[in-house]
């Protein structure tokens, strides 16, 4: 080590680039040769130095694989430090030099017999990391011995080695009977061996969902709970995470496990605490709510959760994401702890944003005054995102706690007076929502809002303002002037604003027909004749026809009473929430997404459910179990936050359907609009070598799991209506039906829902609007080596277009894209080449539009709307989509 330090000093003296040490920066030609000589030196010290240099080069990413035989020759040594370095090298390069790696086998086998347990363990640990088939064969015998070694240090290492081997060759592990030996280790006398065996078994069981490998029964549970008191902090985590997968037979067993787990809540390691919380949250579902113990347990959960907030900021962040889930599932736990979520001046921004979320969730009539005072403070801070969220939070409070609405509105007005541009805009967006919740109550503020009309430059704020003007047109004297002023730059506005303006002016016309006739004609012609957005055009045509055929009906449709928006916003959908509760402490709980949304391959596809809810039908004895009661409460309507809409839709679909094969790990395959193209696309998206899998869709729109089905309209937020309709096969039908096929007239009572859709879909941020099927994920990145394609079909200026977003999720650049249409039922074929000229760098996305013609070869597909595309691109990968 000293030498390296000397080298560093030398580098300084010579004034060469001070980055790593000399061997890192200079690429001398003879370097490898020199190292080779040193490695074969007789002097031990020189040898060791040479190996260190090799490892240093390896670290910075230099290829030193050419030295393989020379390094392996150093393996036979009694110097443990040197041996470890050689092993490190071996783990890195064995895969690229499998034949030479065999040279090392003998030493490994010999080391596994060494009298020193540290060396035996080192050998078996390293051998498991060398992923070469030929070596794994030789590994079996030593591993078998090590699993039964007299020394616990060797056994605990061997236990993990079984998991390593299983990752390389699962069949071999089963054939050799290692799984049984591993199960035996759960009864080992040493707690650390037990913990590692549990960890290994849990991991293996994840890739065999139905194997019942972790045969958890009261006896094994008892063993685990005993080991829990004795093993290291990490071992406790493995055991607790494993316990969480167990389903107790009855509430008594559930309680006795809870009692033995609660002491863990006082552990200094936050991960032990959170994993214990997970076990308790899950098993609590089984406990009858009137049980004394149930109440005690609820009380015990709060303090440790609060304590997590004094940990380091990164841990606070993870804890807050989890607390967000916990308060949604069991608000009673933390309802008196509002103050600890107050934001501190020095909190990192990610902690601040999460705390805000939880403050809103905990806001109630009792504490609203305090919360509002805090939020008002935050709204004057520096970070723009944080301030915006604080303003939005004030609006959410108004909607959540009715008694506070008035105070919230006046706070928002104060904030508008600050004239800080983004504060004003954010405030206007939330005031619109407040109007939707408490109609005809706060119109007095409209005048103040109108004063700020000129400063609005964000589409969302403009759209919200226009909605307000249209909605209350009869009370605003100069509504026509205001709207007219927006109309001047109609074509420069975003779709969202255009749609809102169209609707607002129609409303205005219906309210004040005499003086606004000209205005309405202007907007209708702008929307229908001068716009190439089919969404806008179609809406314009509907209004036009409505107005020209039956103004009375038009009034009934357009000015129908709107349903109030629901009070709880941003709640996670209940089935997803249940699943996430089962994943407390893990990445899934940080992302608020099921593991299948971000984990590749077979792992994590299993969906976990809370015990009580799925089994509540069977537990006749205690029909009033916690979850049964919880579930029977009417599920609150959910307004997904706008950005998450797509994600949420995707996630919902992934809950297991009752029959049929489990859905694949892919995320986006099941969205409503995929019906357009049918499941056939799915079968194409895999590698071409793969046999096409059976279409996996179980017809999502009819699936009872989807809360989107059978909605009771009042619970529905406009966003969802927009999204749903836009994506549904009926409305999105072949490429935007031409206006001529529009129903000739609307007879009077068309349900209010339709009106509502038009009225707000734009306002709440579906940029594509209702008539353009939104882009759906056609090809998830994991199936195409990192290229993600989503797209939709639209008609622009009479030409059918395929619009796609290509997103490079791989780590290398992609270029030379091309597309090919296979024969299909409509004769669709590209009318021109695909124009993507620039290479796509990692994490970049690009929009592409491909004009289509219908003159291609026709072949009837089954189902009719099945379309197959081939999409090769040059990054040494080929995909189909």
């Amino acid at each position, binding site marked *: 080590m000293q030498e*390296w330090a000397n080298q560093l000093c030398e580098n300084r003296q010579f004034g060469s680039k001070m980055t790593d040490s000399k061997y890192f920066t200079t690429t001398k030609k003879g370097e490898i040769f020199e190292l080779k000589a040193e490695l074969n030196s007789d002097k031990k010290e020189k040898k060791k130095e040479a190996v260190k240099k090799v490892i240093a080069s390896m670290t910075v990413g230099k290829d030193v694989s050419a030295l393989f035989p020379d390094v392996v020759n150093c393996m036979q040594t009694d110097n443990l430090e040197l041996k*470890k370095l050689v092993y490190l090298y071996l783990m890195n390069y064995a895969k690229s030099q499998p034949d030479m790696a065999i040279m090392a086998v003998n030493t490994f086998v010999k080391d596994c017999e060494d009298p020193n347990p540290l060396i035996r363990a080192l050998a078996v640990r390293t051998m498991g990391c060398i992923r070469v088939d030929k070596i794994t064969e030789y590994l079996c015998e030593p591993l078998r011995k090590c699993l039964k070694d007299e020394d616990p240090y060797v056994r605990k290492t061997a236990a993990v080695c079984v998991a390593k081997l299983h990752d390389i060759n699962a069949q071999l592990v089963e054939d050799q009977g290692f799984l049984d030996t591993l199960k035996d280790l759960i009864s080992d006398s*040493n707690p650390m061996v037990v913990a590692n065996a549990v960890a290994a078994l849990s991991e293996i069981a994840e890739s065999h969902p139905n194997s019942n490998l972790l045969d958890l029964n009261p006896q094994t549970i008892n063993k685990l709970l005993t080991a829990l008191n004795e093993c290291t902090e990490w071992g406790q985590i493995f055991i607790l995470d494993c316990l969480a997968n167990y389903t107790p037979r009855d509430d008594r067993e559930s309680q006795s496990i809870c009692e033995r787990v609660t*002491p863990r809540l006082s552990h200094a390691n936050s991960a032990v605490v959170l994993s214990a919380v997970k076990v308790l949250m899950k098993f609590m579902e089984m406990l009858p709510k009137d049980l004394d113990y149930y109440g005690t347990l609820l009380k015990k959960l709060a303090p440790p959760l609060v304590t997590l907030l004094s940990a380091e900021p990164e841990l606070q962040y993870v804890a807050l994401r989890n607390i967000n889930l916990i308060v949604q599932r069991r608000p009673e736990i933390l309802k008196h702890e509002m103050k600890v979520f107050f934001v501190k001046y020095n909190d990192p921004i990610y902690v601040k944003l999460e705390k805000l979320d939880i403050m809103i969730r905990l806001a109630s009539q009792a504490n609203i005054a305090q919360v509002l005072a805090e939020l008002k403070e935050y709204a004057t801070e520096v970070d723009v995102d944080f301030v915006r969220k604080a303003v939005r939070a004030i609006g959410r409070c108004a909607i959540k706690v009715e008694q506070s609405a008035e105070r919230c509105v006046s706070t928002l007005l104060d904030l508008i007076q600050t004239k800080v541009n983004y504060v004003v805009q954010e405030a206007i967006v939330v005031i619109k929502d407040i109007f939707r919740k408490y109609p005809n109550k706060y119109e007095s503020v409209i005048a103040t809002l109108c004063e700020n009309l000129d400063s609005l430059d964000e589409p969302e704020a403009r759209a919200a303002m226009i909605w307000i003007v249209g909605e209350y047109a009869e009370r605003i004297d100069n509504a026509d002037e205001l709207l007219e002023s927006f109309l001047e730059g109609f074509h420069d506005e975003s779709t969202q604003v255009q749609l809102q303006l169209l609707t607002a002016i129609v409303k205005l016309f219906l309210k004040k027909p005499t003086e606004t006739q000209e205005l309405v004609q202007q907007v209708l012609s702008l929307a229908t004749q001068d716009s190439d957005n089919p969404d806008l055009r179609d809406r314009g045509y509907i209004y036009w026809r409505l107005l020209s055929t039956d103004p009375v009906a038009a009034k009934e449709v357009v000015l129908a009473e709107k349903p109030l928006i629901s009070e709880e916003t941003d709640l996670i959908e209940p089935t997803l929430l249940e699943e996430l509760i089962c994943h407390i402490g893990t*990445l899934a709980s940080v992302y608020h997404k099921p593991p299948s949304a971000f984990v590749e391959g077979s792992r994590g596809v299993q969906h976990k459910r809370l015990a009580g809810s799925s089994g509540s039908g069977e537990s006749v004895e205690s029909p009033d179990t916690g979850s049964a009661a919880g579930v029977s409460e009417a599920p609150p309507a959910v307004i997904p936050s706008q950005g998450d809409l797509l994600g949420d839709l995707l996630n919902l679909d992934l809950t297991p359907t009752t029959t049929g094969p489990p859905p694949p790990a892919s995320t986006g395959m099941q969205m409503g609009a995929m019906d357009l193209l049918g499941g056939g696309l799915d079968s194409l998206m895999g590698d071409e070598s793969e046999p096409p899998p059976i279409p996996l869709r179980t017809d999502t729109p009819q699936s009872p799991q989807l809360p989107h089905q059978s909605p009771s309209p009042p619970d529905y937020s406009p966003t969802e209506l927009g999204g749903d309709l836009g994506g549904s096969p009926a409305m999105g039908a072949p490429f935007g039906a031409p206006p001529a096929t529009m129903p000739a007239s609307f007879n009077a009572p068309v349900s209010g829902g339709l009106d509502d859709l038009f009225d707000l879909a734009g306002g709440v941020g579906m940029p594509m609007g209702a008539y353009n099927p939104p882009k759906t994920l056609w090809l998830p990145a994991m199936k195409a080596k990192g290229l993600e394609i989503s797209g939709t079909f639209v008609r622009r200026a009479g030409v059918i277009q395929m619009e796609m977003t290509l997103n490079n999720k791989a780590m290398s650049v992609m270029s030379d894209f091309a597309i090919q249409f296979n024969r299909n039922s409509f004769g669709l074929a590209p009318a021109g080449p695909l124009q993507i000229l620039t290479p796509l760098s990692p994490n970049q996305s690009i929009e592409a539009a491909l004009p289509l013609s219908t003159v291609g070869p026709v072949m009837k597909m089954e189902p009719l709307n099945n379309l197959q595309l081939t999409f090769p691109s040059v990054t040494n990968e080929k995909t189909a989509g």
Partner: protein
Amino acid sequence: MIGGLFIYNHKGEVLISRVYRDDIGRNAVDAFRVNVIHARQQVRSPVTNIARTSFFHVKRSNIWLAAVTKQNVNATMVFEFLYKMCDVMSAYFGKISEENVKNNFVLIYELLDEILDFGYPQNSETGALKTFITQQGIKSQHHSKEEQSQITSQVTGQIGWRREGIKYRRNELFLDVLESVNLLMSPQGQVLSAHVSGRVVMKSYLSGMPECKFGMNDKIVIDKQGKGGSSEDGAKSGKQSIAIDDCTFHQCVRLSKFDSERSISFIPPDGDYELMRYRTTKDIILPFRVIPLVREVGRTKLEVKVVIKSNFKSSLLAQKIEVRIPTPLNTSGVQLICMKGKAKYKASENAIVWKVKRMAGMKESQISAEIELLPNDKKKWARPPISMNFEVPFAPSGLKVRYLKVFEPKLNYSDHDVIKWVRYIGRSGIYETRC
């Protein structure tokens, strides 16, 4: 589980790269550098997902530690592990700096091999690790068979944090009760939130495998004992006892015993360690009260008067007192008058900093400032809170150590032979008064 662990310097050059899982490729090293270290905007989350790979990172001075995974790992555990990794490295070679990491890279690889196996954290107690991961590789060869099995049983055993056969001529222990008191007060003097987060830190130099028992004036324990005696007694001692909201313990403490009897018993690690952490919110002694008075005189002048009152026994002395009064961004000049200590206007920090070296209890002092403002600034001043720093020689929570008993049945020393030292230090955490 953890798929790999990387250490970078501030430029994003990789200093250590250890991959445990096959699904993590070399390009992951670059992905983190490009997307996080070299990212233009401020880090918005300690967890980053890049191309379906999740990166957890913590920063120690200029050094980035990143753990990588493609699975749904226990995120809390990964962060706890990264902190632990930092602790272990500091215990071996001091400050975590680029130079130290480079100079100890072989040692770090050796540690990483030992404390993470296939991405699963293993025993990471420095006490145990130091018995067999030494920087003299050759020496470890000369362990006798007995020593070897002693090492392995310690690493895997129930008492992984302490080795057998420790001997001291003088058995001694030091207990530090370190508290940080946090306050957020409204301008009118109403306490918006206040809590104490405390730590009991111990240095133990004890022979053998001593069994220790720690006692403090925990309300629950005292009340329980009070039940046996007269009710008056209970009320009396109740005044001196404190309600602890929550506490967490070092892994040496027997948690199930605490849960059932609320007694804190343990076999301590050798040397420095943190025995427990706790939090209290009730009956906190707020050592200082800050009374702000801000008056806007026209558009170009601000008059600020701040009074501080010390609220503890007059025989005690507070030290290192510092009051920080924020000033508006458009401040052009400040005139200061203070009765005690030194005050300065620091334009670069937009604050008046008033320092007082010492102040006894039950005293008060004040500072007045006239702040001249430039008129052109349109933005309203957000008035950040006035913050305060200090150190006092008592525990603001009221916590008292009642006893720490040491039993070592096998060796020839008793509780009385152990020399024990106790010290209380209360420091300001975030101690703010809005103005």
